[in-house]
């Protein structure tokens, strides 16, 4: 955008100074930035949780002591793997918070613009409905998850520093030798979990976008109602629970496939460095249900874009 200013200031004829970055990728970047401006909870909420966790770690370091015995013996993890464990632990609360925030974001993003009629402004710009909806999907499934991953990485780094400070003060045993390869493997394993999770939950994202584009009021209720009503109706008419089973399966189904019967029992509690070898990544990514879900998500997003194109209630 600075280039715009420069071009215009360069006394060139206005026709010769078209915005440089109006390709699809450039437009999507601008749209994604706009989402982060509008829906600030998307990045504020994880940051707040992260800050709380750092405070917690500092306080815990001051209050509690660990005896040396805890980290000795054969079960002793490699330092880098330890790092990854901390990252995993740090990512958990961040992921939960982000899931909630992203859920509300998806439900709100296509509804609020109609409610406050700002859609008329957005639609006055040469941006297709498809691009707009895809930008929102990218925020939910790419930008926020990667942000959370990066934040988890940063947190684990801070935790390590806090741990080492405490170790230097003799409060906890020092972290044993760093294991670069183990750490890299653990990072890749975490990233793989993230990718599988995003793909597996994509239909939920598509569903929320569709409800958001469609609902004339109370999108939250419209999102909750169909699955609940379907379960109740099914229960009382057929006395079966296929809907419930399906929802449970779409919520947990991929994780047993990905983790298999991973033995994280005693003695290997910290062996996350070998987690990558244990992940059934090929089985998870080859899972037909995973890709059926992705196809369904694509259909739902397409439907949301179509509805946004023609819904006329402003």
């Amino acid at each position, binding site marked *: 955008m600075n280039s715009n200013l420069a071009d215009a200031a360069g006394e060139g004829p206005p026709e010769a100074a078209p915005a440089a970055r*109006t390709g699809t990728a450039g437009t999507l970047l601008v749209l994604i930035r706009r989402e982060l401006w509008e829906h600030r909870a998307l990045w504020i909420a994880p940051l707040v949780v992260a800050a709380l966790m750092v405070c917690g770690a500092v306080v815990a370091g001051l209050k509690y002591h660990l005896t040396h015995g805890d980290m000795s013996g054969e079960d002793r993890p490699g330092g880098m793997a330890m790092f990854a464990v901390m990252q995993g632990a740090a990512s958990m609360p961040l992921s939960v918070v982000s899931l909630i925030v992203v859920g509300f974001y998806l439900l709100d993003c296509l509804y609020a613009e109609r409610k406050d009629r700002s859609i008329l402004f957005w639609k006055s710009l040469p941006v297709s409905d498809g691009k707009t909806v895809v930008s929102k999907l990218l925020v939910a499934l790419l930008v926020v998850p990667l942000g959370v991953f990066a934040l988890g990485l940063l947190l684990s780094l801070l935790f390590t520093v806090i741990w080492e400070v405490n170790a230097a003060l003799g409060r906890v045993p020092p972290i044993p030798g760093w294991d670069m390869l183990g750490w890299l493997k653990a990072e890749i394993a975490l990233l793989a979990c993230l990718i599988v999770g995003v793909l597996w939950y994509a239909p939920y994202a598509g569903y929320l976008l569709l409800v958001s584009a469609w609902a004339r009021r109370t999108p939250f209720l419209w999102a909750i109602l169909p699955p609940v009503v379907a379960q109740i109706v099914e229960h009382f008419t057929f006395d079966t629970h296929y809907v419930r089973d399906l929802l449970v399966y779409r919520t947990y189904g991929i994780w047993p496939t990905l983790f298999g019967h991973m033995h994280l029992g005693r003695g290997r509690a910290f062996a996350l460095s070998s987690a990558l070898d244990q992940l059934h990544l090929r089985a998870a990514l080859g899972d037909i249900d995973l890709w059926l879900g992705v196809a369904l998500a694509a259909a739902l997003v397409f439907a949301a874009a179509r509805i946004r194109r023609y819904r006329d209630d402003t």
Partner: protein
Amino acid sequence: MTAVIEARGLAKAYGATHALDGVSFSVEPGRIVGLIGPNGAGKTTALKAILGLTPFTGELQVLGLDPRTRRDELMREVCFMADVAVLPRWLRVSQALQVVGGVHPRFDRARATDFLRRTDIRMESRVRELSKGMVTQLHLALILAIDARLLVLDEPTLGLDLLYRRKFYDTLLNDYFDKERTILLTTHQVEEVENLFTDVIFINHGRVALSSSVEELSSHYQQLTVAAEAAPTARALKPFYEREVFGRVAMLFEGRSAAELRGFGELRTPSIADLFVAKMQGTPST
């Protein structure tokens, strides 16, 4: 030059209500067209059809494109501004410039910045912190900086005070309009902007009641004001509308020459507002 807008038999119903009931008109380039009608007459629906915001039946070409199928291309050449409340309230002025500049190939940011510098609007303000008049100025700044061929304005000055309204139309005329551009405008305040229009389209009950250039209006319509005693003789020439003002009778004639009427009393070209009122009479509205 081909028409900027060519509409043939536009129709659209909301349930049993016919918002558009076979509307046909065309708009030539370099014109400022007033789309005028009472509330619920179908003005906004017509604009929405032109902007590809609503489905409809009939034939419509805007800049040679069908808004139903080629909206994305069309919006590079068309700008529109619905009434003031549509800029997102969370948006900062600087962000507005970045967003429009980032997605619009014909946006000249320096021009918008330059315009904003002459107002009280600060770059870091959010839309929700601005007064209604300032929001309109901001929106106008964005629009002035876009090199579009068609500008569609739907009640752009609704709820603004007279100073802002006057400034708005002055800016539009002086800084924006030229022979390459076309403006399509709906407004309730017809009296205020009637000198702006080069063409008018009256629309009522989803139909076009009148479509004419302003020059043609003056040769086609006459307003004759006569004393009450002379009214019956003048009435023989079949005015399509009359009303009494201070004991005199104002009559509107269609298709009569000035020479035919001059003998009866005071003769002038009716204002667009008078003509509008006359045309809407006998077709009960609301």
